[in-house]
């Protein structure tokens, strides 16, 4: 038995010997030369990459976007105006409440910007997505110039996707999923808003699945001021109605999750976001 062990060891050593004829290490054959930096690259470096380790992808890279969608790159002139809005209505409030460490830990490491929206076969189109807790893609920037309505829309899109990132890093309570279990549907586009609210969803898209439901709750909560949020709940039937009750249950879980997991007070976040949205709109 002992002799067998030595023989096996010898065979193992021979395998290494067989590999010893490899060429000497040389310089990488891959082109590692960085692209020349433009003023836009400098701005991104100064505002996103250097401090927060966020890479902003605005140039077309085949494997950075979905191959199924017909997309075009973002117009370079639209990059900074969009990122400035995001700085104010998303980055600033979260840093102010959660602190730099929290933000660096949770911020997406990549923000990809795409010029066109992602038209899909079912007639809908994709405006944003979050992946693997590390990346947010925002689409349709070429056709969505920044105006008063759009600031709120961009803020909503980004808070929605960032909520996915937070959920991907730390899951929300499973109790959230039980509130509307059985009501999520792929036919969410075929339902009117009144019906959606009546069933306890804050928006049509919230009806698509529980993760979208949670992201829609957070994003609409911070985008709407208290009065508009309350109006939505009233439109769900008011106190005692099924839709209202479910939305309040979801609201409670959402508030607790953000407080317990990230020490973020969503009421305070909402106030900060409201102020920043108003400021951005005023500066347009």
């Amino acid at each position, binding site marked *: 038995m002992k002799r067998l062990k030595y*023989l096996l060891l010898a065979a193992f050593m*021979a395998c290494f010997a067989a590999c010893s004829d490899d060429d000497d290490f040389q310089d990488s054959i891959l082109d590692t030369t960085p692209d020349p930096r433009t003023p836009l690259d400098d701005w991104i470096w100064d505002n996103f990459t250097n401090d927060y380790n966020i890479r902003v992808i605005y140039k077309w890279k085949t494997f950075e976007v979905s191959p199924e969608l017909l997309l075009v790159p973002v117009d370079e002139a639209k990059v900074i105006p969009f990122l400035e809005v995001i700085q104010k209505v998303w980055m600033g409030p979260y840093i102010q409440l959660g602190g730099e460490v929290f933000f660096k830990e949770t911020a997406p490491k990549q923000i990809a910007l795409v010029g066109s929206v992602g038209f899909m076969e079912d007639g809908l189109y994709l405006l944003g997505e979050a992946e693997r807790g590390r990346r947010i893609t925002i689409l349709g920037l070429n056709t969505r110039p920044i105006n008063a309505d759009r600031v709120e829309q961009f803020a909503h899109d980004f808070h929605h996707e960032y909520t996915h990132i937070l959920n991907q890093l730390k899951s929300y309570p499973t109790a959230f999923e039980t509130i509307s279990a059985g009501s999520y549907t792929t036919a969410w586009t075929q339902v009117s808003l009144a019906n959606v609210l009546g069933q306890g969803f804050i928006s049509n898209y919230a009806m698509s699945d529980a993760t979208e439901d949670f992201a829609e709750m957070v994003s609409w909560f911070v985008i709407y001021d208290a009065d508009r949020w309350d109006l939505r709940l009233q439109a769900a039937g008011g106190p005692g109605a099924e839709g209202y009750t479910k939305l309040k249950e979801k609201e409670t879980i959402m508030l607790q999750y953000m407080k317990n997991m990230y020490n973020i007070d969503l009421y305070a976040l909402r106030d900060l976001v409201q102020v920043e949205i108003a400021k951005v709109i005023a500066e347009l």
Partner: protein
Amino acid sequence: MKKREILWLLPLLFLLARCTVKEDYIFEESATARIKAYITACEATITKPEYGWKALFEPNKQSLGGYNIVMKFAEDGNVRMVCDFLEDETTSTYSFNESQGAVLCMDTYSALHYLADPRIPRAGVLGVGLEGEFEFVIKEVTADSMVFTGKKWGEPVVFYPAEERDWTGRMAAYREHIEKMAPQEDSPFFRALTMNNTAVNIVYDPPTRTIIYTYSDNVSKEILSASTRVYGTDEGVRLSPEIRVNGVVLDRLRYNQSTRMFEVSTPGVVGALRYSNTPPFPFYKSLNMLRERSTFACTPRIGSLSGNITGILELLLALIGGHSSYMTSELQLGYRNLALAGMKQFRIIWDIDGEGPWFSLFGALSFAAMDDLYYSTSYKLNMEILRDDEDQVRFTWANEKQTDNAQFDTNMSIQAGFAAFRLFITDPAGFTIVPSANERFYLVNLADSRRWLLLSKE
């Protein structure tokens, strides 16, 4: 016994180990090193011509015309472009990468991306674009040409060295001529292209750079339609495939600056392209063509107007003019008004209970209706055929209606759009029925050809 069997395996292991290092490579360098060298050579070639490269993009030879572009690639990674489909010069960046072999990629937004942009509506549909490309798989590179295939759609494209004049006037001339092919605002409907002793009626679609032409066969009198693609030239436009009608072949038009008219420049053919309020020839028995094998002719159907997101998107398309190629401007407002009230389609129904035709609206109880039940309300029309060629008709109101839902009937009848459509259809002047491609037919007002409606057989 078992131990001895294992010992016999050992020499075999040595053999396998030895096999891994003595391979003979066909190439002296690795694939990565070779493609890197190839890309370096491409970079050198693409930046070399003094005036850059020019290319004719033909994204789809079935349904799209040609788009010319001239590009100057700089060593700093920037590329300037001038083209015949956008007025302004663009500057963007380019790079090479390896995915399906060596690939040239215009990686920031440029003129080329305009052709690939899905936001450009095509035939009333968003999300398709003009099948443009901005990533090109390199197939062959010489000093005189660079041959690529588009990465998305796979169509071949060839870059040739450009001349100074491509930058200083040629693209602008191409664009100017192409733009002059577009119907002038408020122009008469008919555009007769006369060719010796025959004529065709053309309908030009600017985004796709295509023409649908209709003509009457000399012998059979049959009304036929075909399509051709349009390309800008120094003098005017080129048509491919050529128009072949009644023995006459035409492939070029020259723009005459003094007469402000396109004239035929194909040798041996005399003619010109003119607007006209009257049809260039009888559209013989076009009424029969419209009625045969179909219960009704209709506007595009708005798929699911029931207050949901899909419906809102479709309505949005209607509101931004996505259906403007289906009706004259006077009807568009009324169409939106009816759509908001729940209409999904306007129809002329040829026969209900042995009688007809009928002016009919089809749709839901309201835009915000939750159900998918569709209703119709139909008003009987009297139809008078105005000449023996059976291509001109007049409709009058017969004061008789049928509906399967009183509420839908009321909802429709009180709309301003209802009155607009009714007045249009029952205009005392009547209509010429003009066949187009794909079983579509224009109703063109006889007194004012700028008033028209495009209906499809369904």
